[in-house]
């Protein structure tokens, strides 16, 4: 997993609420058995459909965007991790919003995608800033937990310590948990003894 420390880039505004994973990664891109080739699928109908000229990611400077400033409940719906893989393949490193759907939020953490939640007022400010093409470039400093906009405006954000650490280090979660093999085995043995109908 690619570590996340300090990353700078263009941020694109996508303020609609309830943007679901069917919209982020339509079903016709879910037919693979590996993670590859998903960058074409991201927001496919918006990027390539009849209204493509009005879609923010097709406009300058946002076609270079590495961050998205999104509306409430982003990533709701299907559990498909393809949505996060595709966003990563298209070059996105962080998403900033007021709320993310639970499964999507976890999928972000597992793939080095920083999902930042801000209060509504702070997000409104940020949305206005990045909607202006001259001020759309942000710097996100994960160790310091800050977002800096042109002109010096700085917003602080919260993140759970365990999530922060694994993003900064780009940890392999499975490998880390397997270090606890003995503890899991001990737990399992006692648990199955206590609930023998599950053994």
């Amino acid at each position, binding site marked *: 997993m690619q570590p996340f420390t300090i990353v700078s880039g263009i941020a694109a505004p996508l303020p609609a609420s309830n943007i679901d994973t069917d*919209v982020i990664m339509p079903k016709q891109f879910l037919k693979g058995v590996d993670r590859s080739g998903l960058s074409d699928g991201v927001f496919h109908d918006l990027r390539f459909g009849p209204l493509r000229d009005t879609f923010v990611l097709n406009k300058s400077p946002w076609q270079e965007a590495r961050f998205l400033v999104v509306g409430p409940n982003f990533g709701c719906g299907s559990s498909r991790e393809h949505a996060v893989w595709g966003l990563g393949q298209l070059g996105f490193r962080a998403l900033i919003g007021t709320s993310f759907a639970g499964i999507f939020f976890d999928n972000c953490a597992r793939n080095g995608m920083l999902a930042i939640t801000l209060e509504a007022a702070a997000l409104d400010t940020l949305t206005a800033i990045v909607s202006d093409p001259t001020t759309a470039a942000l710097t996100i400093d994960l160790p310091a937990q800050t977002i800096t906009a042109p002109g010096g405006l700085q917003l602080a954000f919260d993140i759970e310590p365990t999530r922060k650490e694994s993003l900064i280090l780009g940890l392999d979660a499975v490998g880390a948990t397997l270090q606890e093999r003995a503890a899991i085995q001990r737990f399992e043995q006692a648990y199955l003894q206590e609930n023998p109908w599950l053994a």
Partner: protein
Amino acid sequence: MAPRTLYDKLVDAHTVRRLDADGRQVLLYIDRTVLNEYTSPQAFTGLREAGRPVWRPRASLGTVDHVNPTASRRVAAMADAGGERQAEYFAENCRDFGIELFDVLHPLQGIEHVVMPEIGLVLPGMVIAAGDSHTTTYGAFGALGFGIGTSDIEHYLATQTLIYKRLKSMRVTVDGTLAPGVRAKDVVMALIRTIGASGATGYAIEFAGTAITALSVEGRMTICNMAVEAGARGALVAPDDRVFAYIAGRPRAPKDDLWDQAVAAWRELKSDPDAVFDQEVVLSAEIIEPMVTWGTSPDQAAPINTSIPDPAQEPNPDRRRDMERALAYMGLAPGMALDAITIDRAFIGSCTNARIEDLRDAALVVRGRHVAAGVRAMVVPGSSTVKRQAEAEGLDKVFLDAGFEWRQSGCSMCLAMNDDVLGAGERCASSTNRNFEGRQGAGGRTHLMSPAMVAAAAIAGRLTDTRRDIGGN
């Protein structure tokens, strides 16, 4: 010990180790999973690349459900090369890692969340995580079920655990008696409309109240299934005798002495009387009416006997914009009566509403009637077992005589990853769970409702109140 909710008890009982000081983040032991062909392949590839075995192969079951065709003659071939490759790789993975597989020709094949409970693999007190958001269905049994992504499937397969963050708790109490003709689907749709599509984000819901305990186990499954459409990542109903009776005798359920031991333990599975929930929501059963969605988010719903709301009346500008966008996509205008909306397609299926009780309920509405001219209607049973049961009861004849297609089981047009797809602009009455843009096909327009309401819409050619227009309950 301080009083605890049922949710807390389940998380505590499965905690291998706390990962932070206050125990909000834990290493959680998972009892079981069910795998499908489209969210699991990259997890197996991860195991193969790292040379890791599956921790406990018998705690996983595979079933092919998302990509398979549902045409009336069952064949092993998939509709397209991508689906074919996924089904093949899935079979290869299950074989190599020692996991039982219900492939498309297997007599127990079906939609994962229909199959797991019906063969007795979902038991009270379990924690079940699976690569599909509707894993919340298992809450109907007092089991904590939640959806995970592919990286977490890999984590589960390799370690039997997940890194888990404890949720906040919400109790939804529905007291009173549902009016005749009001169903479990209407209860959960009314809840989602009340609290919104993210109203339960960050929460596990416990459903309580006399209207919930009066529901059948399958009705409770419908409610827990759709709780995720309000953002909940877990939905529980305390298990009772009705649940135990439902499980008893199913092929994989515990037997004899183990059964008695299990039931004795399961009787303890409830929230302590003075447990405190982070949030309480109360609905009165009496005022719930048959619901339909008019928009592109499950909370854009209203009782069938009302009309489409006017965005101009909506004070919140974000919500107003969402409403306008939804109505434009749906090709609908404010003020239009919901029961004046004509349909092209009707779909009875999905893990929300394609179990045997759903099919019986819908068959009552269609018996002796015929699908309206110009409407294509189909029934896709939730599992091959449900299909056989329905055929034994003659329900297939009822549907076929009325002009419905009677198909093989699978997810089908719930997400349209096979060849069952809505055309652009086609409008569908659907017993599924998501009315997102393009969910049932690019440009397709979905109205969610109960299976009986779908049946009534198919007959009438438009959305309709089963109670008034069809006279059935």
